[in-house]
């Protein structure tokens, strides 16, 4: 009896994931069938004419996550290095706890702070500066042109980046601590500087797991909803500029789900959710596999 109850509880975990995927595929099927592969690439999203293409939302999800990764990866790496190599032993737990606090802040707080505090800063100072300094350049210029609204892809990307810093840095710190002390001490004994130990001993040893941590952060960034919904602007027009309002898969769902007035509209939003689910599943599975590799190697050698 007890065994059976425990077993069914565990299977439930598996079933939930399977059912979540299936139910969303089922719900999204009418839209996917109606628009076919064009659903993914079309940038035409018009509830009035019942035309739904996910292009703008997918583009927004990818671009805002890319900005977030550009910001979060180097900073997280720096924090992990600081916590494992630089900070005095007494400072480490305090700083680590503070960074973990950042991970505990609910995502809607990031969104609200973004809307009321960060957006004005972006539109008053940062974006005019970006437009005047980078806007005239060839190639990257179009990315930074347009009116400084404050709301847009760049702001969303930065807030997402701040959000995922604690996730990536805590994974990196954990795997850095897995490096056998003998390796580290041996290179110090050879006269290596701290930075050389990080670059030439710690990083090569933990490379796969570090990438795994980065993917974990990417998985978070792709699916994050509340932090970006506030500051993206829910625009369905494609725009190359990072300063213009955009959209993302999760923001589109959050903004429009309760307003969807036709079955096809609802189905298109659920299909968006299905796409998001598939993409994050792949990213998170890859992250997990990469992290497992280090754990396995660690188990073998010790």
């Amino acid at each position, binding site marked *: 009896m007890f065994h059976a109850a425990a077993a069914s509880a565990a299977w439930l975990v598996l079933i939930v994931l399977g059912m979540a995927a299936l139910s969303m595929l089922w719900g999204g099927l009418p839209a996917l069938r109606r628009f076919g592969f064009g659903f993914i690439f079309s940038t035409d999203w018009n509830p009035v004419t019942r035309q739904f293409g996910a292009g703008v939302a997918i583009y927004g999800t990818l671009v805002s996550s890319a900005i977030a990764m550009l910001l979060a990866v180097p900073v997280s790496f720096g*924090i992990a290095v600081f916590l494992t190599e630089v900070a005095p032993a007494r400072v480490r737990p305090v700083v680590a706890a503070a960074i973990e606090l950042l991970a505990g802040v609910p995502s809607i707080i990031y969104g609200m702070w973004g809307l009321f505090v960060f957006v004005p800063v972006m539109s008053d100072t940062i974006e005019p500066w970006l437009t005047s300094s980078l806007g005239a350049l060839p190639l990257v210029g179009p990315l930074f042109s347009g009116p400084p609204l404050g709301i847009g892809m760049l702001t969303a990307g930065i807030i997402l980046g701040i959000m995922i810093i604690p996730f990536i840095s805590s994974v990196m710190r954990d795997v850095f601590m897995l490096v056998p002390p003998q390796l580290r001490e041996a290179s110090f004994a050879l006269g290596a500087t701290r930075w050389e130990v990080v670059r030439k001993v710690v990083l090569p040893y933990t490379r796969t797991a570090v990438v795994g941590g980065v993917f974990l952060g990417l998985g978070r960034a792709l699916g994050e909803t509340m932090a970006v919904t506030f500051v993206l602007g829910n625009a369905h027009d494609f725009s190359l500029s990072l300063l213009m309002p955009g959209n993302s898969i999760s923001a589109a769902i959050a903004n429009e789900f309760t307003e969807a007035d036709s079955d096809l509209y609802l189905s298109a939003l659920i299909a968006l959710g299905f796409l998001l689910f598939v993409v994050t599943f792949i990213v998170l599975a890859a992250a997990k596999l990469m992290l497992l590799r280090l754990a396995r190697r660690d188990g073998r050698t010790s």
Partner: protein
Amino acid sequence: MSVAVPAAHAPGLIRRRKIVNLIGLTFAACATLFGLFWLVWILGTTLYFGFSALSPKLFTQMTPAPGASGGLLNALFGSAVMIVIGVVTGTPVGVMAGTWLAEYRHGTPIAGIIRFVNDILLSAPSIVIGLFVYELVVRTSGHFSGYAGGIALALILLPVVVRTSDETLRLIPVSLREATLALGAPRWRMVTAILWPAARTGITTGILLAVARISGETAPLLFTALNNQYWTANPANPMANIPVVIFQYALSPYEDWHSLAWAGALIMTLLVLTTSVLARAALKGKR
């Protein structure tokens, strides 16, 4: 590992290596300051706007119509109800699943697969869980409800509890299990009378962390519990809750609503952070 030892005698090279080292470590310190800077800014803002919006009315009045004054009583109550539903339904399933993984199927492929899937659920986008519960509960029952919100929260809590119970149970020494079984106790007695009490702190910590997590979740409640401007104690109705109220009020054009949103944000943030700090402290105290 090509640390150039012989050439290190050249003074120029040493100086360059030292400078690179200094730059690298300075970068690490600046990155940490950068991270802490946002923490201080975000928390500072929330505390400042939150405390200036705090008043006793929050806890005695319902959420107002635009332009009227009011509080957050129904939203606070709704949030509490849904969190309780989530904990009451999610925790037993999570602990049982963790027990099965750690005690009955440890080391088998299926345990590996379920752990893998569980870890993915742990970081899966919460909006997807909301859509799933919408399809599962709201569409079949025909209306938004507090129950649906509670179920969505339970599904977010579940993987956290599964993982912590699994991990804590595996830390218990084998000798304890062998001693119990040698006394003739059946396996379920061993689990309930010996292992669960031994793993109590770890499992409680997991539940607390999960509660902290679900208390701040907004996306899964948007299309399950929805919102309700009025008082309801019946979870079969759509229910107001703090996160969705914050979402709607913050995006509204009304000053009064903004300040209510900040008050809600403050209450929620303090609750979430205190719970998670307490949970972590309990875990550290045990180690």
